[in-house]
């Protein structure tokens, strides 16, 4: 988000305004009230006696609520201090704004208070790409409310604006006349309600749900925080980061309207407030020891929407887990394929990984039985549909050549998969981490088949396939002279030889031969990949390396959390602690809220992490990062019905206690003390 903008968020509804609380959007400007990938308000401007207001301060009360303190006048020198204006705004099915004006004068004051309102009903994709609208707009004033409507054939989106104080409505807003006695006050509630999918009988008349109450949202957040484990530690910043993570995760929970009432993590503000297969799965994995319910809903929702047919426009195959689901106009008219779009090569194996990890933590065998068909179909997809080159590896190449995704791995920007010399690889591309995920899915699927589905035949077949995959992978992807795994294999099966962070995910999945792990750990913590804050997406010295290139040199916190987990898995506990220490130290600079990515500059050079210019924040898997790092540092691992704790913490973190960790064991506590020197002069602080 740009500086000076204020955002509040609840699930997939969010408001972005300036520091006065006003919205004056242009087509390419991301301010407004957004829900279901549509902008429902693009203009919302408050004036008092014809004057705009000047902000004194802004308080973010909750993730869903902000308060603006304002005074009339926009002059830089003179402000009329006889009046105070307070706007308190909470989101939830649109938003409610409590507008209050205080008269500090000894004389009464007569005011004309106006709110200009309007909507361009832009699809989020249009805001991103500046496209033109095809439908018609209308505004109706009726029964003390203003209803703004956008209509294109049967597609209707509407915004309903009303107030509790008597108001005069016109097609461009509403106006109040108030006389405020000396030292008196005047107030009104402004309700802005969004209507998207109508309920059936009300096709011509969209129905409006009531704005959700602030109290119930507060109670919901309190419950969410109360159910999560408590963190005690000497390092204040870590406590702050932990709390920030839990609150942001609560804000990013969202119940898609065509999913029933389940909530799962949306990917991130502002562009990705929707269900993403990859992001929802990885965030659920990160948060498993803290909020296991997210994993259950993610698995159910993704299972429901699993691909069942071959559809080239959506890159859908039977068994494939979706990439992205959208609700906007372009998706509705099939001008974009996100209904849903399936172009992701990793979400499907990761679905099986999450299902197994979820059961290991919670012991919820019922869900594993419930999703048996979907998990089998996912495992089948790996062999039947994902092996595009017929060489036994998952690879990807979009079938939707116009609006499909070129790169279907997490590094999805155009220039992410290159050789050392910077040349881009040909399609299909078999990136290395996909093979790791496939291996892990087979190993975990084998366990589920044996222990829960009672299918010994499938279990041993998967184990055999996994062993064979591991053997081949360690031969075909290994670059012997430099001792690391190639980023990918290209169309001809040739190694795409750049050194990248992807090798860290290989440790996490367990596909790496023990004999090769040490070299991988050495690369990850070596100066070409490790910046001091974290592991870069692409190593310094590679042709396309750029410390502020989206996937070619920046440091991604989520990437690092899985790398740390991988290092732990192969016994590199100190190295894992070092990665954790770097990322958590960076979090402190971002007030506990890690952005999706930050610059790959050397830590000693910049002293602070350099934020990537257009990074999304909060972003779900960055929000989940401190959680997974805590798990990794404390060495939390479910073994049977017990939770094993094996803490290896960086010096400077001091004493750490994580209390009431939920799981199949009930609730247990974990304690640890920092002892690993991480190379920084004064440890973490």
């Amino acid at each position, binding site marked *: 988000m740009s500086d000076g903008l204020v955002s509040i968020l609840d699930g997939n509804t969010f408001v972005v305004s300036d520091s006065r609380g006003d919205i004056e959007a242009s087509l390419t400007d991301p301010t407004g009230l957004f829900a279901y990938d549509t902008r429902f308000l693009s203009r919302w401007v408050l004036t008092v006696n014809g004057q705009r207001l000047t902000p004194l301060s802004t308080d973010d009360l909750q993730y869903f609520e902000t308060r603006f303190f304002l005074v009339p006048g926009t002059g830089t020198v003179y402000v009329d201090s006889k009046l105070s204006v307070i706007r308190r705004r909470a989101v939830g099915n649109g938003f409610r704004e409590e507008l209050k004006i205080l008269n500090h004068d000894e004389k009464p004051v007569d005011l004309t208070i106006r709110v200009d309102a309007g909507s361009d009903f832009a699809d989020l994709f249009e805001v991103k790409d500046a496209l033109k609208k095809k439908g018609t707009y209308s505004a109706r004033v009726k029964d003390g409310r203003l209803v703004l409507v956008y209509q294109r054939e049967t597609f209707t989106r509407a915004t309903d604006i009303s107030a509790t104080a008597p108001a005069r409505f016109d097609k461009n807003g509403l106006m109040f006349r108030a006389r405020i006695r000396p030292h008196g006050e005047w107030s009104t509630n402004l309700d802005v309600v969004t209507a998207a999918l109508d309920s059936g009988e009300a*096709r011509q008349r969209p129905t409006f749900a009531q704005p959700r109450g602030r109290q119930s949202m507060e109670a919901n957040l309190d419950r969410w925080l109360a159910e999560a484990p408590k963190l005690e530690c000497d390092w204040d910043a870590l406590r702050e980061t932990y709390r920030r993570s839990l609150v942001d995760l609560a804000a990013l929970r969202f119940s898609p309207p065509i999913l029933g009432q389940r909530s799962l993590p949306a990917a991130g503000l502002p562009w990705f407030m929707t269900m993403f297969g990859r992001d929802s799965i990885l965030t659920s994995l990160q948060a498993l020891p803290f909020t296991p319910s997210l994993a259950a809903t993610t698995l159910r929702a993704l299972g*429901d929407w699993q691909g069942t047919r071959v559809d080239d426009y*959506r890159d859908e195959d039977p068994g494939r887990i979706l990439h992205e689901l959208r609700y906007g106009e372009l998706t509705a008219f099939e001008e974009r394929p996100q209904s849903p779009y399936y172009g992701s090569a990793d979400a499907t194996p990761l679905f099986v990984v999450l299902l197994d990890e979820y059961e290991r933590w919670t012991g919820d065998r019922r869900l594993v039985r419930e999703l048996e068909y979907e998990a089998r179909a996912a495992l089948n997809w790996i062999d*039947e549909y994902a092996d595009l080159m017929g060489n036994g590896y998952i690879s990807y190449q979009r079938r939707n050549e116009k609006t499909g995704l070129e790169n279907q791995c997490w590094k999805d920007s155009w220039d992410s998969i290159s050789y050392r010399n910077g040349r881009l690889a040909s399609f299909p591309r078999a990136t290395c981490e996909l093979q790791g995920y496939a291996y892990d899915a087979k190993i975990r699927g084998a366990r589920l088949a044996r222990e829960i589905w009672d299918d010994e035949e499938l279990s041993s077949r998967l184990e055999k396939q996994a062993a064979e995959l591991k053997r081949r992978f360690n031969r075909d992807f290994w670059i012997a002279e430099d001792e690391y795994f190639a980023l990918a294999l290209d169309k001809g099966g040739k190694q795409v030889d750049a050194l990248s962070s992807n090798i860290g995910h290989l440790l996490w999945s367990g596909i790496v031969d023990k004999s090769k792990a040490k070299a991988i750990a050495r690369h990850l913590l070596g100066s070409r990949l490790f910046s001091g804050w974290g592991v870069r997406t692409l190593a310094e010295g590679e042709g396309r390396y750029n410390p502020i290139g989206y996937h070619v040199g920046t440091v991604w916190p989520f990437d690092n959390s899985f790398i740390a987990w991988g290092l732990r898995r192969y016994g590199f506990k100190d190295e894992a602690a070092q990665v954790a220490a770097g990322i958590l130290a960076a979090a402190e600079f971002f007030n506990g809220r890690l952005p999706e990515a930050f610059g790959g500059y050397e830590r000693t050079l910049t002293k602070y992490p350099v934020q990537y210019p257009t990074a999304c924040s909060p972003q779900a898997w960055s929000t989940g990062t401190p959680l997974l790092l805590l798990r990794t540092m404390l060495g939390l691992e479910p073994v049977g019905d017990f939770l094993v704790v094996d803490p290896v913490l960086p010096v400077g973190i001091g004493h750490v206690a994580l209390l009431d960790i939920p799981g199949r064991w009930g609730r247990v506590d974990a304690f640890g003390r920092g002892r690993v020197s991480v190379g920084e002069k004064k440890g973490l602080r």
Partner: protein
Amino acid sequence: MTAAAVVAPSLGPMSGATAAFFGELAERGHDPLLENTKGTLRLELADGKRVDRWFLEVDNGNVAVSRKNAKADCTVRAKKELFDGIAGGEVNATAAVLRGALTIQGDVELMVRLQRLFPGPPVRRTRRSRSADGRRKP
């Protein structure tokens, strides 16, 4: 998926992709994609002034298809022409919901499960190991 009408006397005279879709579903009587699903669905498909009705009872994979006029957990409304497109794989059901061309009342989850059964668009066979009808093998 065959385009021809399926003979299932209890369902009355039928033609078009919708009839073929439900006829085949009735004949199968079971679909693994409807495991863990329980409830009733009513479809009202407007055809000029007529309304074509379908009634589905789903019980953990077992499906009974009829023309019963009864209340259901989930009611789906659309034009018959549109639904023929969905049942024939030419129109995407989810996009139709998003643009209000198909409306759902009641338990949305049931429609989410049902949409899994709709076929994909007519397949251009470009890659190996795909079944011709675009449906996955159970």
